[in-house]
C-alpha cells in the first residue's frame, strides 16, 4: 500500500526514516511519556543510587563507587536470601509445571465433573495473595487445622512456620496452592489446540496412553510449557506477599527472600542506596536466569515445529 508508485520521486532518506507508518504520532505519545516517566526514569535513578551512600532523606549524595557491592558480597543475610529465593523459584517451577500438567490432563478428559473441577482448581488464582496467606497462617498455626488433623491420626504436631525448613516448605505449599490453577488453564488451552488426529494416529500405530502423552502431547505442549515456566520463575523470584503474611522472613532469616530483603533494607532500615544495590544485583540475577530459560524453551518449541 505504501510502496511508492513508479511515477513518484522517492522522498528523501530522512523523511522515510521519520515516517513510521499510517498513524499520527500523538497516538503513541501518552504511552511513551508514562513509560519513560514511571518506569524508565526510576530504574535509571535506582541504578545510579546503587553507587552512592544516600539514605533517602539527606540533602547530600556522595558517590562511593562499588562499596555497596563489596558490602553485599560480605553480607551473610543477602547471600542466604539469594539462596532462599532460588530454592523457592525452582521449587515453584517444578511443582506448578508437574501438578499443572496433571490437572490439565485430568480436566481435559471426559470426566463428567470436568467443568466443576476446572473452576475449583482455578479459583485461588484470582484471590488476593496476602489474604489467602493469612488464611493459611491459621491452617499452619500451632493449634491450626493441619496439626489438628495430625493429632487425629495420632501423629505429633509440627511447627509448620517455626522450623526453618518446614517454613520454607509451607510458603511453597501456599503459593503452589494458589497458582497451580494458572498452569492448569495454560496447559489446558495448549491441549485443546492439539489436533485430535495426532492422538488417533498414535493410537492406531499402537502407542499406549503413557507413550502418547510422552511422544505426542508433551512435545505439542512446548509453547504452553514456555509460558508456564517463565511465569512461575518470575513469580518465584519476585515473591513477597506470602512471606510478609506467613513468616516475615523468619524464623531467623530462613525465609527471607531478595524481595523482602530489599523492602527491609530500604524502608525499614532506611538504607536506600544499599537497597538499590541489592535490587540491581537482584535484577541481574532475574535477567540472567529468565532470559536463557526463555531462549532454551523457545528453541525447543521450534524444534518440534
Amino acid at each position, binding site marked *: *500500500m505504501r510502496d511508492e508508485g513508479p511515477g513518484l520521486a522517492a522522498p528523501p532518506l530522512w523523511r522515510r526514516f521519520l515516517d*513510521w*507508518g*499510517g*498513524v499520527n504520532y500523538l*497516538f*503513541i505519545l*501518552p*504511552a511513551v511519556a508514562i*513509560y519513560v516517566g*514511571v*518506569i*524508565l*526514569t*526510576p*530504574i535509571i*535513578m*535506582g*541504578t545510579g*543510587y546503587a553507587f552512592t551512600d544516600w539514605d*533517602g532523606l539527606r540533602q547530600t549524595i556522595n558517590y562511593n563507587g562499588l562499596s555497596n557491592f563489596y558490602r553485599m558480597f560480605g553480607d551473610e543475610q543477602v547471600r542466604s536470601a539469594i539462596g532462599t529465593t532460588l530454592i523457592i523459584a525452582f521449587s515453584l517451577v517444578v511443582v506448578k509445571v508437574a501438578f499443572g500438567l496433571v490437572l490439565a490432563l485430568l480436566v*481435559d*478428559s*471426559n*470426566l463428567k*465433573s470436568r467443568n466443576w*473441577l476446572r473452576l*475449583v*482448581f482455578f*479459583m*485461588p488464582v*484470582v*484471590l*488476593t*495473595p*496476602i*489474604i489467602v496467606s*493469612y*488464611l*493459611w497462617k*491459621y*491452617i499452619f498455626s500451632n493449634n491450626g*487445622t493441619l496439626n489438628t488433623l495430625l493429632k487425629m491420626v495420632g501423629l505429633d504436631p509440627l511447627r509448620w512456620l517455626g522450623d526453618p525448613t518446614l517454613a520454607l516448605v509451607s510458603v511453597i505449599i501456599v503459593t503452589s496452592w494458589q497458582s497451580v490453577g*494458572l498452569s492448569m*488453564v495454560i496447559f489446558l*488451552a495448549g*491441549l*485443546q489446540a492439539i489436533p485430535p488426529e495426532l*492422538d488417533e494416529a498414535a493410537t492406531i500405530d499402537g502407542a499406549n496412553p503413557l507413550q502418547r502423552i510422552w511422544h505426542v502431547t508433551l512435545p505439542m505442549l512446548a509453547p504452553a510449557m514456555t*509460558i508456564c515456566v517463565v511465569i512461575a520463575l518470575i513469580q518465584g523470584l519476585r515473591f513477597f*506477599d506470602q512471606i510478609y503474611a506467613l513468616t516475615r522472613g523468619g524464623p531467623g532469616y530462613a525465609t527471607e527472600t531478595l*524481595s523482602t530483603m530489599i523492602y527491609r533494607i*530500604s524502608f525499614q532500615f532506611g538504607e536506600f542506596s544499599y537497597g538499590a544495590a541489592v*535490587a*540491581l544485583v*537482584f*535484577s541481574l540475577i*532475574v*535477567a540472567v536466569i*529468565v532470559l536463557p530459560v526463555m531462549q532454551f524453551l523457545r528453541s525447543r518449541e521450534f524444534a518440534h515445529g
Partner: protein
Amino acid sequence: MASTAPYRARNFALEIVALVAAIVFIFPIYLLVTISLKERSTWSRNPMSPPLEPYWGNFQEAWKQAYLSDALLSSIVVVTLSLIILVTVGAFGAYFLARCRPRMGYVLYIFFLLAMILPFQLGLLPLYQLMRDVQLLGTPFSLVIFYCGYQLPFTIFLYTGYIRALPRAYDEAAKIDGATDMQTFLHVIFPMIRPVTGTVIILNCVFIWNDFMTPLLYLQGSRWATIPVAVAAFVDQEITDWGIVFAALLIGIAPVMALFAVLQRRMMEGFAGGLKA
C-alpha cells in the same frame, strides 16, 4: 483434545479420585467461610464443623474495626481510574504500534518489552521518593500512576497483538472516506477490539485489586489504604480472634470472588491466553 472415548468404570474411579482431590483442595476456602460464621467459643472448640447456626457478628466487627468501608472505596477508586487510563493509553499506543512500519514497530516493541524484563524493584525506591517529593504519597493518585506505568507494557502487548490481526482494509477504507486517525480509531478500531478490551480489564483489575507491596509502601497508615493493606494491618493486630479475622479476609476477597462467579469462563480464558503476551 477432549477425548471422545467412552465413559468406563476406570473413568468413574478417576472421577472419584478427582472429586476427593478437589474437596481437599477447596477445604481452606470452606474453613474460611465456616470459621467466619462462628463465635469465638464455637470455633475454638470445633473449627471444622459446618456452621449450622451462623453467627454474623464477626462481619460487623471486622467491617468496623478494619475500616473496610474506606478501604473498599479506595480500592474501587484506584482500580477504576487505573483501568480507564490503561485502556485509553494502551489502545491508542497499540493502534500506532500495530500500524507502523515493521522495523520501527520492532524497535518500539523491544523498547516496551524491556519493562517486562527490567526489575520493578529497582524502580520502586526512586519512584517512592519521587512520589514523596511531589506530595502524592498517601493519596490514591500515587498508586494510579504506578499501575498505569507498570501495567502499560503488558496492556499494549495484548492490544497490539490483537490489532495486528485485524485487516488493514478496514481503517484504510475509513481513511479514503476522509476520516481522521482519531475518527478511524473511535469508530472502526475500538469497536472491533472489544473482546481484548475485556481481557485487558479483567486481568488488570485482578492484578491491581490484589496487589499488596506497592500500596503497603505508598498508602500505609493513610486513610486511603486499599483492601489488602487495610486487611493486613487489621489482621496483624487482631490475630487472636480468627472468627473476626476470617470475616475481614472474606470481605476482602468477596469482590474478586463475585467477579469470578459472574465471569468464570471468560476469566479462565483471559488468564490462559492473556498472559502469553
